């Protein structure tokens, strides 16, 4: 009897958590299929299936362009951040040098600054480099903000890889670059996928930098583009379009997570690399 009560409570709790986390997205989906004044009625079940909002979003100038901007910026950020983080974490985990601990703490400290605190300085930097209103402005700033986390996670993972495997590779004649690419990377896949995915999501959703470092509508990323969607008049918030756009930009993330799901699970369960 006690067993059933415990089980029921457990699944009840699971249900509450799932509802709390999924409901906003669910509500966005069902709202996006509504049209006209139906938008302002509170319904918990789908009442209509109207694709007008989606058509309108895709018809709006530059929305598709902004999706491509976001894909490019997020992918490039992940690429740069992964390259720098892998090489940096190899050094931090495996190469003995002066001030290694201090450097690690500094990297961690960098991630403590709130975005708004570095915005002005970063803006000057972006202007100085002549990349204002270009995707590189976002790629640079996102990479800076992603790196501390990525480096820390990968350094921890790399430290856990057995020293002897690296030494075996050294004896086999591998250079540091070959050790990283041929021996460590395959072992670090789960960690790479997890951190890479988080970096991608971070870059995909970022708003403040994207708003500040772009001026023209063709350079916007998706979050900014959605925020700047306007209705027929200044005083109307186009809820239907907003909901449809939100659903559209969430789909790529869901697809990514589904693709890499197996790797993520592998990363969570197969912690050690017992030779």
């Amino acid at each position, binding site marked *: 009897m006690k067993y059933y009560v415990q089980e029921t409570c457990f699944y009840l709790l699971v249900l509450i958590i799932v509802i709390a986390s999924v409901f906003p997205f669910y509500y966005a989906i069902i709202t996006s299929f509504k049209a006209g004044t139906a938008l302002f009625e509170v319904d918990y079940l789908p009442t209509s299936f109207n694709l007008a909002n989606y058509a309108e979003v895709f018809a709006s100038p530059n929305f598709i362009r902004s999706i491509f901007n976001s894909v490019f910026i997020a992918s490039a950020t992940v690429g740069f951040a992964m390259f720098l983080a892998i090489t940096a974490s190899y050094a931090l985990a495996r190469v003995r040098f002066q001030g290694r601990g201090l450097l690690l703490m500094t990297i961690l400290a960098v991630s403590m600054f709130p975005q708004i605190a570095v915005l002005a300085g970063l803006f000057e930097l972006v202007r100085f480099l002549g990349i204002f209103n270009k995707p590189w402005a976002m790629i640079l700033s996102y990479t800076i903000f992603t790196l501390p986390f990525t480096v820390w996670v990968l350094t921890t993972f790399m430290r856990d890889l057995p020293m*002897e*495997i690296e030494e*075996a590779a050294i*004896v*086999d*004649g*591998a250079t540091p670059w070959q050790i990283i690419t041929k021996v460590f990377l395959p072992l670090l896949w789960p960690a790479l996928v997890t951190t890479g995915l988080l970096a991608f999501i971070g870059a995909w959703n970022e708003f403040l930098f994207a708003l500040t470092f772009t001026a023209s509508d063709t350079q916007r990323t998706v979050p900014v583009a959605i925020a700047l969607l306007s209705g027929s008049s200044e005083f109307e918030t186009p809820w239907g379009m907003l909901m449809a756009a939100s659903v559209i930009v969430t789909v790529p993330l869901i697809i990514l997570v589904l693709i890499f799901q197996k790797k993520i699970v592998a990363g969570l369960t197969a912690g050690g690399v017992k*030779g």
Partner: protein
Amino acid sequence: MAQINLKGLRKSFGSVEVIHGIDLEIRKGEFMVFVGPSGCGKSTLLRLIAGLEEISAGDLEFDEKRVNNDVPAKRGIAMVFQSYALYPHMSVYDNMAFGMKLAKSNPGEIKERVHNAAKMLQIDHLMDRKPKQLSGGQRQRVAIGRAIVRDPRVFLFDEPLSNLDAALRVATRLEIAKLHQNMKDVTMIYVTHDQVEAMTLADRICVLRDGLVEQVGTPDELYEKPASVFVAGFIGSPKMNLLQGAFSHDFDCTTVGIRPEHIEIQTDGAAKWRGKVVHTENLGSDSFIFVDIGHTEPVIVRQIGSHRIPVGTEIGISPIDQHIHRFDENDQIIG
């Protein structure tokens, strides 16, 4: 194929020196075993020879050529690690071929060498498996196979048997001995803390203690003529009986050593020492009798065959004169 010379080799980690100047000559095709208690620097010494640690001072020569600054791959060495250190994501074949692939060898030759090595070690049916699908003994064979494929001048073993269970250890030991016979001109250096492995495998043994060479010699030499109390106590199982105080003064030395098999039980009154039996270990082929003669530790006496002497029996024992080892106050051999 290489003669190795160590000349005043030193290694410090920060301000701590762990290898205090080692001079040693390892001959071509020799099976040299470094043995010593943990922390004696034997593994560090092996890693210095391998090139995995930087040499702080002194010279390391392979065939009279200084290799201090050569990277491991350039020295022509292969190493078998204690934990096997196989690449977990590669198949057995790829593990063994990795070094040759990095060296951009001809694919046909890679295949041939890997298959020959695999056949020699009887792992040719495992080529497509991943390391985690293998047993401990199989993994160690793959690790040895990977080393063979490199066709090294010098073969280095870092406690390769310590992760195996007792039965497998004996079997693998035999295989390493066979390997040495098949690869006569390859110099092999083997690190272990187990003196049985050292005695059974080595052409010569180098006993290390606190970063210094204590004695170098063939297993027989070390067993029969230990140069110091340390070597006397380390080589041989069970340990040599080492007696001090009044017992050694009889022999005009600070410490007297006598191996268990060199003590006779005497029933007449002429016995050198008398004491009570405190314990017996009967192994069938021989028996060890522990006799308390008033020294801090009981004296161990080896008797061939099965001997059951009840605990508490008082017996007389005498060392055989020509097998007595005498050591001075610095623990060095006299004479």
